[in-house]
């Protein structure tokens, strides 16, 4: 009886968003009486950072400090329409809608400032710190707050903007079968190393090396956070998660989520991540989205690594000790595919 090490590789192309009847998201931006801005969305932040990223995008486009933007995603009944936070679409779809809305609001803000400064709006620039000034003449300036207040209390303008980003439905050509379901792909590759115990059938993930191409990482720490958390989910899918772990006898099965197995803090593997930034032409500031793909390559990579380690090809998940042992028995013993150098 022995421990066998194996390596597995997987690479994926992952579509950003989907195309089932068209894929739209809307954003509304308006200034408040204190000169700060609210971005109204129905795109829910599940913890992945939707609010942070749309806040950055709005601030960058409006030309104001991030602190002056509030993102309201509270209510999908009253907010502008969004298809939802899924399909890795949030940053790409919603981000583009926010840019369009913020551009319209920015134009009104500059018009209001131009009227106060008695200059042409096309001569004005923002400094990103809360001021609007004449290009090349920083002393001829007005704060964004003063401009927005003048718009509301003197000029009678709404400093606001509407944005929508729509990937229209792509019908299948009945003659050729051709369609364009996806406009933007993200890419990833992953190498994992596992250890398989041929006595118990247990698989431990020892190491994960990954490379992700996600367009521009609009918030690099959030991207890294999603990739780390998502890879853990991938490990969970491939080795733990099932509602029926105790086959063949259902009477010993789980009765609630407390028995639903997922890896704990003691089951982690070091994960070395490289993020490659190739800005997407149709993405907001070049961003795509890590979303779902952060979990995906782990599954095939681990399945391949188990095959490499003991020669058992498992094609239904999760890879439980029982399946590994049955496979080893059917093969008449563990059949490692390659020898790795011993403990490095």
């Amino acid at each position, binding site marked *: 009886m022995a421990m066998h090490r194996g390596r597995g590789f997987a690479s994926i192309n992952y579509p950003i968003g989907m195309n089932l009847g068209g894929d739209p998201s809307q954003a509304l931006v308006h200034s408040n009486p204190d000169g700060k801005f609210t971005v109204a969305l129905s795109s829910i932040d599940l913890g992945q950072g939707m609010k942070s990223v749309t806040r950055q995008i709005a601030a960058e486009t409006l030309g104001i400090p991030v602190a002056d933007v509030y993102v309201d995603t509270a209510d999908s009944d009253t907010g502008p329409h969004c298809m939802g936070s899924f399909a890795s679409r949030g940053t790409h779809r919603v981000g583009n809608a926010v840019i369009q809305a913020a551009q319209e609001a920015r134009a009104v803000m500059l018009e209001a400032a131009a009227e106060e400064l008695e200059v042409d709006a096309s001569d004005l620039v923002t400094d990103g710190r809360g001021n609007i000034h004449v290009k090349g003449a920083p002393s001829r300036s007005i704060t964004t707050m003063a401009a927005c207040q003048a718009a509301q209390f003197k000029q009678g303008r709404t400093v606001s903007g509407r944005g929508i980003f729509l990937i229209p439905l792509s019908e299948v050509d009945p003659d050729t079968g051709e369609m364009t379901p996806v406009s933007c792909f993200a890419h990833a590759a992953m190498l994992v190393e596992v250890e398989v115990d041929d006595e118990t059938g247990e698989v431990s993930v020892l190491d994960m090396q990954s490379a992700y191409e996600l367009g521009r990482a609009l918030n690099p720490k959030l991207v890294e*956070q999603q990739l780390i958390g998502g890879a*853990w989910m991938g490990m969970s899918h491939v080795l733990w998660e099932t509602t029926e772990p105790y086959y063949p006898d259902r009477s010993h099965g789980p009765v609630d989520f407390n028995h639903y197995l997922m890896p*704990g*803090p003691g089951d982690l593997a070091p994960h070395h991540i490289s993020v490659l930034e190739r800005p997407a032409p149709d993405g907001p500031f070049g961003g795509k989205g890590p979303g779902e793909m952060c979990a995906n390559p782990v599954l095939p990579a681990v399945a391949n690594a188990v095959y490499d380690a003991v020669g058992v090809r498992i094609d239904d998940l999760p890879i439980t000790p029982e399946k590994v042992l049955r496979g080893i028995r059917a093969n008449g013993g563990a059949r490692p595919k390659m020898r790795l150098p011993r403990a490095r």
Partner: protein
Amino acid sequence: MAKKPVTFTLNGSDRAAFAEEGLNLLEFLRRGIGDLSPKYGCGQGACGACTVIIDGETHLACLTMADAVHGRKVETASGLANGKVHPLQEAFMEYFAAQCGYCTPGMLMSAKVLLDRNPSPTRADVIEAISGNLCRCTGYEPIIDAILATANMRARA
């Protein structure tokens, strides 16, 4: 149902409130006292989201009777920041150790007790300390790193 007066210390302040017989500490803190930092996760003592500190030890508030804290010192995540954020909270932000944030108050409580007892824990000690707290977003790695960083920062200070 009979109500019992419960007097205790919550995050350093004396508190008194009536608790119905059989009421658990989690409901008592959230509804009776209004401290919403302990979270209701499973209600069965499996997830750790409701972890609080009683007399220096971690307890699951959902499995503790409200009147059991009579005369005792209770600490919750809402008491961590004292004028400024606690070093653990600082490190959790620095290391992006929260996504949805639901497990965070319980994680902070488990981490605080660990560091109060063992100022220089190993990685294995940290894993052991948070093994009763489930997180479904972060993959734990950033949480472990944040707790270790807090210990290192304190050692250097």
